[in-house]
């Protein structure tokens, strides 16, 4: 264990800004991509269903 306390860990030996900008932005991008993919799945299912209903109605 390298850290004497949690604030010592956060300080990253004086490099907090550089280390946490790297880790923080990476975490944000990964979270954004996961949310995007989940939304994309719902939208593609919903859109395909709407298209299919429109075709069914227009063919009757």
């Amino acid at each position, binding site marked *: *264990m*390298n*850290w004497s306390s949690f604030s010592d*860990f956060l300080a*990253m*030996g*004086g*490099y907090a800004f*550089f*280390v946490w*900008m*790297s*880790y923080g*932005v*990476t975490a944000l*991008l*990964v979270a954004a*991509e*996961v949310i995007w*993919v*989940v*939304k*994309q*799945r*719902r*939208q*593609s*299912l*919903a*859109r*395909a*269903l*709407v*298209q*299919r209903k429109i075709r069914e109605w227009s063919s009757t």
Partner: protein
Amino acid sequence: MAIHWFKYASPASFYGLAGRMIPWFAGAAVVTTLIGLYVGLVLAPTDFQQGDSYRIIYIHVPAAWMGMFTYLVMAGWAAAGVVFNTRLSGMMVQALAPTGAMFTFVALWTGAFWGRPTWGTYWVWDARLTSTLILFFLYIGYMALRASIDDPRRADRAGAVLTLVGVVNIPIIYFSVQWWNTLHQGASVRPGSSSMATVMLTGMLVMAVAAWMYTIAISLARVRSIIIEREQHSAWVGELLASEGHDAVAGTSRGAMGSNQQGTR
């Protein structure tokens, strides 16, 4: 061999296979990320030269590897699409591009925030950095090209050509630190030898595995949406929608109607 590979080249059977694999790869991604972060941020000691700024390596190197490797996988699918003319190939290329672009951006971003404390600058036009920036533009270029072509099959072919031409950039990135006198350090990890302490190397390799697991899970999830969008006129998607679609519409009816007005391909 009893495995019928071409069976899974059809989007309909690949859709089911991908759905069964996603939970395993997503779970492995979460577990390896937690282990990698624990090893890298808690167990690994402070570097005697760079202090704790070196801890950026646990993101930077796996992201840079993944950005390059994802491009090679895209190029492999693109080549398969050109040779066998399978629809799934183009869909896989399309599904991998955003994640490859994300990891390449992360490599550039974390590199900037590592370069500042170690080199005194966020950016230099050095061979390694410049060729990695070109890789990022290749991903963006592929996505822009796709978005500009309405017919998905034509977009597949145009995208495959762009991807295959751009693959020449990958060895340039990889060997840039040997071919040119760059500010970027040489490879810390080579097959058979490496210049890192064991615990640091372990943390980095676990994070690299995590990046792999994440990329596989997220691109399989993305390709399922792409398959539904592009195969929506087929009978099997109709059956699928009858069982799954109504739940999805109940969740996002407003969004779906909104985007429907813009028309679908």
